């Protein structure tokens, strides 16, 4: 607090303050005030002190009154408390009395309660004792009746007690008796484990009991597994021996009944019994057994007796069903995958079989055609019919196999409507289509490789070429559409990716090309060979005057014509060479015109070139091969005048007869001109005959 304030508080002049100094106040008043003011102040102070006096008197009076009433109240309370005190004393006395009574009663009841308790416990003990004494007989009875489970249950109950009181002589005898019995039980259980007649469920039961009888786990597991394995081994052997003797249904039945059922029981029991222990042993073991089963099953599938689709599918269905069930028990993905694999494998196998069969049958068919062509001769064989027969046969066979494969998609089959199965079937079908066609193409290519030893009739080459082309143009698409339709019907809503048919197409077209090339070269070479031999063997220097075309020319024309007519059956051309120009004769040039200048204006002739799939192109090809050989052979010889004239007649004859074949008359004329001018060059006396005489000779010949 600041100094001035303190001074203010203790202002000695403040009349109401506690530090009021009357003398100072008076002094101050005397000094500062006028007399009047002092007179007024005196009067004021007098009134004030009078009023204070009266106030104080009233207050004293009031307090006195209050004090008197309080004293009266206290006196009243003192008398009330005395009564309360008396009543409280009475209550405590009564409670003391109750306590004594109650302790008296409880003391008197204590003895009888103890007695009841003792009686109860004695009773329980007696029960247990009776069970114990009866235990050996119970056990024996249970074992005799085969209720091993009960026996083991009883024994495990009693065992604890027996162990506790084992040192008492009376219990000891019971314990030994029981152990003997249980020992016997264990023994018989073990025997049962090892005996071959026990079923898998009995086996599992025995093992479970033994485990309750506190046999050690690992040895038990080993015994269990080895027993199971040996039993399964026996089944496997049996099944293996059955592979060759029974059909698939029988086999699958047996397999399901024996091995798969047992395997299921073994595995589920194993899981129940050895739940907590690690589970490594069993899937391995199961996988091993299943792999063997699969192997056997595949062997069964591959047996020729089991090719029938229906029976195969039924067998497969049963097998698959069982397997699915089993794989659920085993909880092994490997097993179920394996089951899927077996089905897809089976479908694939089926498809392979189908296309192989088709191929073999087609080959046989081809052999027949070949023989009939060889025996009939070339003239009266209707190539179109043969082609149609072959084509229809092939298409039908393929379509039939596709339909056959669709059986794998039946609704009632366990795997029927699964997408993976549909995919496998689609794949299988495509295998049938593509492999069949590719293999046939390969076969045709092989046939077409020209070898001196193989004597394929050229008509057959034409037919095969046409067949390939037809298949390429229509057949593959038809088969593809057919397949799509079948798949839609069998597995609606399933999307199967469309297969790429390019490889097939390429194979077919190359096969067709090589067959055509081979045909052209074959015909051309046949004719060329005739011409070559006839030109090389003849002594052209001493040739007589020509009387007609040589016989070889007729044979050449016949050969080429027969090939042409065969080709016309299969490869018709719309364009026909105009006949009016066909009579044009080659007016031979002078030898001097045999110059490079002349050749500049003619195109280079490719003799061995790919043949077109067209009658005219085929004939052109053969003509080129034959006539180019004639040119080359003529150049190796020397001609007299008559020799040259003979050749002139021959060339004219060939030109007349061959101009109706092929459509490239320029080519024909160029080659024939070349032959004649080459002969002129090789002639010691190059004088040609009058064209009119040549004409006459040719007509006459």
């Amino acid at each position: 607090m600041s100094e001035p304030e303190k001074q203010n508080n203790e202002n000695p002049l403040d009349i109401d303050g506690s530090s009021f100094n009357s003398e100072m106040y008076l002094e101050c008043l005397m000094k500062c005030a006028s007399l009047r003011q002092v007179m007024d102040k005196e009067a004021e102070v007098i009134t004030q002190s009078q009023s204070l006096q009266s106030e104080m008197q009233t207050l004293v009076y009031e307090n006195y009154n209050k004090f008197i009433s309080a004293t009266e109240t206290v006196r009243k309370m003192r008398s009330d408390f005395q009564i309360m005190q008396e009543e409280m004393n009475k209550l405590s006395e009564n409670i003391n009395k109750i306590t004594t009574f109650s302790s008296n009663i409880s003391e008197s009841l204590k003895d009888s309660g103890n007695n009841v308790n003792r009686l109860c416990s004695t009773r329980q003990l007696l029960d247990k004792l009776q069970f114990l004494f009866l235990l050996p007989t119970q056990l024996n009875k249970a074992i005799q009746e085969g209720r091993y489970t009960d026996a083991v249950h009883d024994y495990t109950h009693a065992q604890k007690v027996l162990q506790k009181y084992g040192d008492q002589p009376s219990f000891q005898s019971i314990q030994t008796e029981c152990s003997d019995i249980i020992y016997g039980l264990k023994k018989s259980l073990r025997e049962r484990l090892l005996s071959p007649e026990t079923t898998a469920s009995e086996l599992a039961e025995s093992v479970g009991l033994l485990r309750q009888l506190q046999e050690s786990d690992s040895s038990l597991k080993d015994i269990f597994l080895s027993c199971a394995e040996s039993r399964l081994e026996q089944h496997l052997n049996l099944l293996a021996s059955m592979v060759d003797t029974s059909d698939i249904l029988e086999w699958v039945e047996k397999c399901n009944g024996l091995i798969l059922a047992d395997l299921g029981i073994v595995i589920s029991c194993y899981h129940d019994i050895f739940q907590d222990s690690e589970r490594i042993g069993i899937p391995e073991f199961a996988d091993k057994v299943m792999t063997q089963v699969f192997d056997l099953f595949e062997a069964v599938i591959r047996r020729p007796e089991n090719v029938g689709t229906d029976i195969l599918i039924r067998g497969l269905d049963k097998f698959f069903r069982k397997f699915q069930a089993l794989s659920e028990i085993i909880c092994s993905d490997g097993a179920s995958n394996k089951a899927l694999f077996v089905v897809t494998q089976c479908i694939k196998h089926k498809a392979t079989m189908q296309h192989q069969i088709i191929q073999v049958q087609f080959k046989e068919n081809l052999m027949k055609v070949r023989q009939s062509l060889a025996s009939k001769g070339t003239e009266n064989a209707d190539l179109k019919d043969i082609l149609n027969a072959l084509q229809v046969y092939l298409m039908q066979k393929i379509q039939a196999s596709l339909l056959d494969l669709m059986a794998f998609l039946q609704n009632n089959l366990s795997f029927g409507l699964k997408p993976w199965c549909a995919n496998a079937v689609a794949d299988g079908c495509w295998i049938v289509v593509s492999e069949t066609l590719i293999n046939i193409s390969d076969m045709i290519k092989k046939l077409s490789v020209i070898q001196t030893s193989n004597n394929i009739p050229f008509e057959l080459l034409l037919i095969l070429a046409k067949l390939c082309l037809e298949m390429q143009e229509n057949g593959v698409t038809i088969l593809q559409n057919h397949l799509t339709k079948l798949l839609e019907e069998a597995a609606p809503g399933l999307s199967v990716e469309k297969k790429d048919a390019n490889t097939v197409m390429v194979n077919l077209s190359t096969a067709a090309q090589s067959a055509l090339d081979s045909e052209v070269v074959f015909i051309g070479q046949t004719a060329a060979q005739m011409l070559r031999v006839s030109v090389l063997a003849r002594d052209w220097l001493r040739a007589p005057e020509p009387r007609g075309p040589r016989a070889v020319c007729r044979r050449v024309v016949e050969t080429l014509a027969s090939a042409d007519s065969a080709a016309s059956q299969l490869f018709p051309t719309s364009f026909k060479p105009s006949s009016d120009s066909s009579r044009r004769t080659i007016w031979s040039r002078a030898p001097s015109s045999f110059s490079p200048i002349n050749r500049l204006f003619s195109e280079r002739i490719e003799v061995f070139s790919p043949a077109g799939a067209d009658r005219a192109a085929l004939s052109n090809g053969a003509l080129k091969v034959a006539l180019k050989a004639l040119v080359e052979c003529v150049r190796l010889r020397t001609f007299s005048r008559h020799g040259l004239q003979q050749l002139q007649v021959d060339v004219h004859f060939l030109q007349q007869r061959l101009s109706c074949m092929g459509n490239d008359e320029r080519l024909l004329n160029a080659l024939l001109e070349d032959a004649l001018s080459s002969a002129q060059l090789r002639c010691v006396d190059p004088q040609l005959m009058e064209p009119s005489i040549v004409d006459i000779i040719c007509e006459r010949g």
Partner: protein
Amino acid sequence: MEEGNSIIYGLEHQTRALSPQYESDAIRFLIGTQSLKPQANQVHVVELEEDTGALHTKVYKHDIGEIWHLRCSPHDAATLMTTHNSYDPENSQCSMGVSIYKLPTLDVIPKDVDELSTMQSQNAEDMELLTTINPEKPEEEIRCSEWHPTDTNCVCIVMDGSVSVRDITTTQGYNITPEGRTRLKFSGGKWSPQAAHQFAVLQDTHIKCFDTRADCKAVWGIDNAHRQLARDLDFNPNRQFQLATAGDDAALNIWDYRNPKEPIFSRTDHSHWVWTVRYNTYHEQLLVTGSSDGRALLTAAASICDTDDDKKLSQVLEDGVLQSYEQHEDSVYCVEWSTAEPWTFASLSYDARLVLSRVPRHFKYKILL
């Protein structure tokens, strides 16, 4: 002569005989003409001047008849041997023979202007006829005659039905008549460069090799070397046991004759009969073939020429046709590599056109580098 620019030389008459000159440093080829007109046949010596690319020729008369086959001697550059045919109008018969000539000079390129003018004024010069061998039967057809690779005096003459080994100084010799298959005529033959006494002949589709010192039993053979007639063969100059054959099936086959079943290399690139095949003397992976489709083809057979060296030929050069030479208008019956320059070859077609060509430069570098 740049790449792709071949040099063409034209003659008057038909031609089917060509030979390089051996033992010479110049690119020189000899051509024989084929004409039935009397006194019309010639031997042309053609030399390519490498620096300028100019072509020089010298013409010699060959009045004895048309030339079917011509071989320069491998021992003497001036000596050549022709297989010829002539027509005798008196008895209207052809007779064939083999003659050996000597050129008066090896020079083809004129040294100065004087010589040029004298050469131009002279039409055709004479050659010196050393000897003529006629077959025992006059009408017997002779296919070809080949110099022995080492024996300077020995030649082998292939006739229709027999093979005759002759000494050119005495013209005496002996015949080999093959056993079996006598019906099939011979169409040509070659000495084996490695086994000096072995002579391989073409018999129809087969190849037969005889030891000329022994009897008529074949030493080795390749049956059905071609599906049609076999036209020519050439031995690999560097590699024993290998030979190339060509035939009417348009194929070029290379064989190891120890395994006659299957060719080790086969190509069908021509579109007609292949008449001739030649190995490059320096680079065995290069072959040139001539065919009656009017083409000469340069083919690489690198895959079968790999050596064990670290550099693999087949990696730098792909098998197959390297170049097709299309300057001919008619059948090409002869092709020959130059003996002096490994990248030049000549091809000769029936229409009397000689084409000198080169291996394209990039292939050359591929092989060399």
